[in-house]
């Protein structure tokens, strides 16, 4: 089995789809010669040429809209939005257009477009290059939203996103691009809407996305040493959400921590907490804990930035709170 980085896994999914299917092409800012700001599309220009590895002007509205227009004509474009902060510039096209054409037309229009984007803190770009904005898009009926956390997941999920007949906003995490994992020779598509249980446990379920999946796994290891058995579940697809898997896990462990890098308040985790409390109400032995960034724009100074975003330690504390609360009987 080859070992791929998360970055190579994204590229592998794109390249395989483009080899098999002329309707698939990629477009975005600086993706051709430069190979993308994160190096994801490096080498693809040579293989596929400038028509299908299409550099765009710095023009998010138009590139998103053009991808939507081409998709409606039956193409399967993958548009790269360099930083998810810049999704703001394309939001009208994604939210008002891509998400709603099918509905407004009474089912006549299909929009098989994928918007790839990335973000994440830990490198001090300041407040406009590292936000986690997935919560904005899971709130929009008509969009699907994916957030992959490992090389094998990102490859299989991206493939499914490309071949999904709905617009998909596909989040990658900047700090994961170098992460390596052995993956099968054959690309196995991972269906959208299926969660992954990374680690089984008995006492607490941590539902985590993106970078926090890895932080949660580390916290779980530490908790294990303290005698607390932690299950780590990554929904992978945030919309549609694999509610059954999340609820089943919490029914088993009776305690739940939700963790993401995005700001906690009004975040994706709030919805997960709601889903879990409703679906596993009679199984909960402790209030659901949430882990996320503090309610502030991302600061520049490294000491402040690291303080704002959550790490394994924050997840571990949340795990302990859920267990401690129950032990006290309070």
């Amino acid at each position, binding site marked *: 089995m080859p070992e791929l980085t998360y970055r190579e896994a994204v590229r592998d999914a794109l390249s395989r789809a483009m080899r098999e299917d002329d309707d698939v*092409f990629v477009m975005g800012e600086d993706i051709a010669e430069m190979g993308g700001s994160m190096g994801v599309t490096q080498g693809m220009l040579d293989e596929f040429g400038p028509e299908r590895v299409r550099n765009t002007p710095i023009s998010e509205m138009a590139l998103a809209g053009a991808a939507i*227009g*081409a998709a409606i004509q039956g193409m399967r474009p993958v548009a790269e939005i360099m930083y998810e902060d810049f999704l703001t510039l394309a939001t009208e096209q994604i939210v008002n257009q891509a998400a709603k*054409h099918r509905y*407004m037309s*009474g089912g006549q229009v299909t929009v098989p477009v994928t918007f790839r984007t990335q973000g994440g803190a830990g490198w001090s770009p300041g407040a406009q290059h590292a936000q986690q904005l997935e919560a904005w898009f899971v709130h929009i009926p008509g969009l699907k939203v994916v957030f992959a956390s490992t090389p094998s997941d990102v490859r299989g999920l991206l493939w499914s996103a490309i071949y999904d007949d709905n617009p998909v906003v596909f989040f990658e995490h900047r700090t994961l691009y170098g992460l390596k994992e052995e993956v099968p020779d054959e690309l196995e598509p991972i269906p959208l809407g299926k969660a992954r249980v990374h680690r089984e446990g008995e006492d607490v379920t941590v539902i985590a996305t993106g970078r926090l999946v890895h932080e949660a796994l580390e916290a779980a290891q530490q908790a294990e040493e303290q005698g607390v058995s932690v299950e780590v579940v990554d929904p992978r697809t945030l919309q549609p959400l694999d509610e059954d898997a999340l609820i089943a896990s919490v029914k088993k462990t009776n305690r739940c921590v939700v963790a993401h890098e995005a700001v906690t308040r009004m975040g994706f985790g709030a919805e997960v907490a709601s889903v879990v409390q409703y679906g596993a109400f009679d199984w909960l032995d402790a209030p659901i804990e949430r882990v996320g960034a503090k309610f502030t724009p991302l600061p520049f100074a490294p000491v402040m930035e690291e303080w704002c975003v959550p790490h394994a330690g924050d997840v571990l504390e949340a795990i302990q709170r859920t267990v401690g609360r129950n032990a006290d009987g309070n």
Partner: protein
Amino acid sequence: MAKVEQRGTLSPEELRDFFREMLLIRRFEEKVEERFRAGELPGFLHVAIGQEAVAVGVIRALEDGDVIASTHRAHGHTLAKGTGPNELMAELYGKLEGCSHGYGGSMHLYDVERGNLGANAVVGGGLPQITGAALAFKMRGEPRVAVAFFGDGATNIGTFHEALNLAQLWRVPALFVLEDNKWAESTPERQHSPISDLSKRADAFGMTAIKVDGQDVEAVYKATKKALEHARSGKGPVFLHVDTYRLVGHYIGDPQVYRTKEEQKEVREHHDPLTQLRGKLELSEDDFDELDAEIVEIVEAAVEFAKNGTDPKPEDALKNVYA
């Protein structure tokens, strides 16, 4: 759809057919105003009275396979692109038989089978997608053109500039039709644009621009044919600046406090494309009345069809969210 071999030549029969189409749009819009005032039509409606020659002139010049994206003022474009008055009226009544099956309404009229990719309620919203549709045609080597309609107000929004820039950069077969009716809702052109000749907007992108009198359907038709030839031949998109007039308010019920009664009267008297074409065709009173009676009957039948249409079930609202 009228097929014309040579651009620039329209037989009297064809022109009479254009007149018939324009009259249908006019009578349809008048009926929509009436039914809205009677409290039967929900929502936010914008009629295209005064702009009939643009819809008919441009769309009759298209070939099968060409696609359009329209605006919030979409009834005329939709009828001209071949959607039946029944299906259009049924949509305005929110019925399943409507062209968007009751999910869209006046501002979201679609008829994909006939190449209507949808009206758009966000000013300028459809422009980037027309660039994208044209890109798809180009990448596949299909001899099709994608046409965007938009008003003078839209030339100030980012999507306009980004979409035209990208279209010209990539030389895609697109036609950008500026329906310059001089008003961005209630704001006159002098208040919303720093330049008086909006066709100069195209210069910024090095895009070919054609300017035409939008109240003269034959002129619009000819200009569109020329523009389409350019786009279809791979030379890139064309900016078609159509000078037209909105004879009515921005929306049904608009008191038009922003323009005088005299001005409203003046445009109605001097810039009505139907009056102009009727004169050109030298239609007799009897001929006109006969045609008008036929059209009125079609429109009345459309109202009947719509009223007798099927109401969606409340829970149908959950359909069509995802493919």
